[in-house]
């Protein structure tokens, strides 16, 4: 294996692992803040217990997200130095805003929240959690804005052999970025809702701490329902943006080879990348792709064959990741809608509870699939249309990256095992008895 492939694998390992924890941080911080606010407003001790219990799981998850985030920031320099030199003028300032404006706030206040129970007033303590939630979302906003620039570069000028900032506003208000932010944060909220519902379902099935977990479940259900529905509409907007700004990704995720009007959508297809066609294609819906992408069924949608072979993303992976993500997205909306009608008799609905317990990992899968599509679908570009991934990698020795890749896998494997062991252990234990 060469340095390029090893570095890509290493970045993939680091990102996937980091993103197992970040979405829950984003969503659960909001849920815990809501719980604590209700405690402050109503004085109901159940909400305090909820804050404590879900807060504990939040913190175990949080620390892994934090420590794995630092390696990501530094990997741009260690493994992708040519890329860093090329677009540091744009990317770096976004990262700096993220750190100075938000990450500091999040990391400083989480310590205050954790250790400050008796040091500050109840109200202030709840506000601190809201600020943690605000700051973690703010962090995500700027990181995603940076990623959006790689998907759809704007506001730059090529000067001195690198991309230099021309309009900060254009970079900060990149439409692709705004869509990615809405999409990713909604996904994080859905994931967190399913996390809370799944664990609550576990206890409700055992008929323990019923009042506590019914309250938790209902709160998460409302949250999950709203964002699952929102995500479907938002995902559609995303597709339209791709049609405009990343046509190769759109063509790959729909396995669309020939430029055509009335472009179809397939329920299922198996692309044959060598022969440049689908070896199997089931259930084409004629005109559907044109309609979704351009709101006109006779609109022309560019096919993969219009692009040179070495500028096409991997089709099977893009197509598969997209299909599965969409199916899961609709599933989340359906089961939360169903839950809406079950919410007053949860304990009497063991089948529904079981479904929700086993659905807990699904949003994690959907979130990772989303990143596979976003990043693999952009290939061979690291910055769409501007810089290819193979031109971005650092001049390192194969041995160096091999060693660190193995170290990453071992360390993260260990960390993941311990982290989930602790989360599961504390989740099963339930709230601390009085």
């Amino acid at each position: 294996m060469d340095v390029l492939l090893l570095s890509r694998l290493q970045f993939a390992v680091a990102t996937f692992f980091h993103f197992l924890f970040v979405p829950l941080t984003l969503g659960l911080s909001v849920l815990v803040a809501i719980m604590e606010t209700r405690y402050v407003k109503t004085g109901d001790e159940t909400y305090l217990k909820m804050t404590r219990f879900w807060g504990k799981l939040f913190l175990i998850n949080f620390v892994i997200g934090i420590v794995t985030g630092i390696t990501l920031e530094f990997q741009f320099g260690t493994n992708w130095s040519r890329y860093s030199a090329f677009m540091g003028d744009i990317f770096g300032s976004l990262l700096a805003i993220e750190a100075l404006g938000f990450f500091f706030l999040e990391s400083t206040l989480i310590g205050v929240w954790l250790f400050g129970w008796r040091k500050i007033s109840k109200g202030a303590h709840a506000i601190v959690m809201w600020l943690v939630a605000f700051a973690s979302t703010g962090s995500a906003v700027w990181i995603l804005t940076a990623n959006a620039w790689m998907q759809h570069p704007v506001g730059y000028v090529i000067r001195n052999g690198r991309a230099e900032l021309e309009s900060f506003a254009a970079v900060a208000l990149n439409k692709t970025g705004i869509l990615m932010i809405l999409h990713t944060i909604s996904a994080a909220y859905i994931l967190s809702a399913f996390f809370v519902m799944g664990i609550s379902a576990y206890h409700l099935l055992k008929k323990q701490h019923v009042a506590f977990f019914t309250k938790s479940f209902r709160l998460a259900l409302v949250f999950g329902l709203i964002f699952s529905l929102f995500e479907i509409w938002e995902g559609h907007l995303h597709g339209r943006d791709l049609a405009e700004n990343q046509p190769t990704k759109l063509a790959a995720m729909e396995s669309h080879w020939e430029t055509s009007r009335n472009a179809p959508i397939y329920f299922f297809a198996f692309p044959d990348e060598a022969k440049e066609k689908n070896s199997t294609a089931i259930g084409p819906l004629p005109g559907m792709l044109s309609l979704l992408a351009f709101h006109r069924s006779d609109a022309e949608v560019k096919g993969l064959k219009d692009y040179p072979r070495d500028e096409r993303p991997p089709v099977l992976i893009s197509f598969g990741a997209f299909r599965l993500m969409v199916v899961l997205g609709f599933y989340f909306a359906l089961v939360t809608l169903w839950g809406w009608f079950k919410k007053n008799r949860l304990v009497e609905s063991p089948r529904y509870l079981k479904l929700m317990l086993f659905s807990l990992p699904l949003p994690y899968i959907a979130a990772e699939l989303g990143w596979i599509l976003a990043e693999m679908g952009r290939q061979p570009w690291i910055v769409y249309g501007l810089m290819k991934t193979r031109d971005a990698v650092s001049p390192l020795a194969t041995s160096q990256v091999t060693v660190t890749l193995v170290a990453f896998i071992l360390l993260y494997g260990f960390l993941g095992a311990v982290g989930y062991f602790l989360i599961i252990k504390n989740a099963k234990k339930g709230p601390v008895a009085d």
Partner: protein
Amino acid sequence: MDLQAIWFFLWVLLWAVYFVTDGFDLGIGSLLLILGKNNEEKRIMYNAMGPLWDGNEVWLLTAGGVTFAAFPLVYAVMFSSLYSALMLILFALIIRGVSLEFRNKVANPRWQKLWDTCLFVGSLVPALLFGVAFANIFRGIPIDAKGVYHGTLFTLLNPYGLLGGVLFLLLFLVHGSIWLAVKSEGALHERGSEMAQKLWPALLTVAVVFLIASGFSTQIYDNYLAHPLLFVFILITVLALFCIKVFLVKGSYWKAWFSSAITIVGATFYGFIGLFPTMFPSSLNPDYNLTAYNASSSSLTLTIMLVLALIFVPIVLAYQFWAYKLFKGKITREDLAYEEAY
């Protein structure tokens, strides 16, 4: 001063603040197995950094982010050429961070011993390697015109680099011991204070050797000799170093800690004042040096970032100061009884 010079010194300042804030965490972690004689004492040491370590570590992230943003070429070359050392630091910081959160989650001595070891290694390795890395930067790194590194991890482990490693380690150990004395009572407090006093002569010796060795191994005195007024910075640093001892003897631990903080800031600036405007010198050919002028971002980016820094850094400092004040009290046995304690 122009934008590049301003950012050069802000960049050094960010690293210095990182070393001051996280430095005592790294020091306490490195001393955990020596000073913490039993489980309770070890837990007090964990909780002495409890609410603060995470916020402290963000200074590292910011220093990295600012390197990326203000000097992309330095970021690219520095981080890829110091690849192995930096990866070791990152892995160490990962296991350090989770040790704090995980240790007290399971009441099993073997589990706790595992995380104590992780905290120790995860603190000692960065403390040492940061010093090795910075001393090597002062000395010059074998990079060619394209910024490609011609060496291995062991190239960095030259005598001057190792001396820098020992210097940083001692600075952090003293800094951590004093913090422990500030934050604890009784026997642990005594041991922290004694450790700081025991390490102080060693720190002084290594610091003096480092100042002399820098004359032979680096060119950093060129700037000082050209502008002799700059020697005042070294003087202040050395004075602060002596103040540590004075305040330790007097039992004024907060003052000793601030003196130690100033010493760390001084040690970080010492080399870069000498290097200015070079940020990452090449040992192969001075023409390959990366400087604040040939490696910086565009003026627009530097200006935007300066505005942002002027707005946000005071805010960050204000709420971090508030957090430090909130948790300035000593960790007691009662604190350990709370559910959330580490």
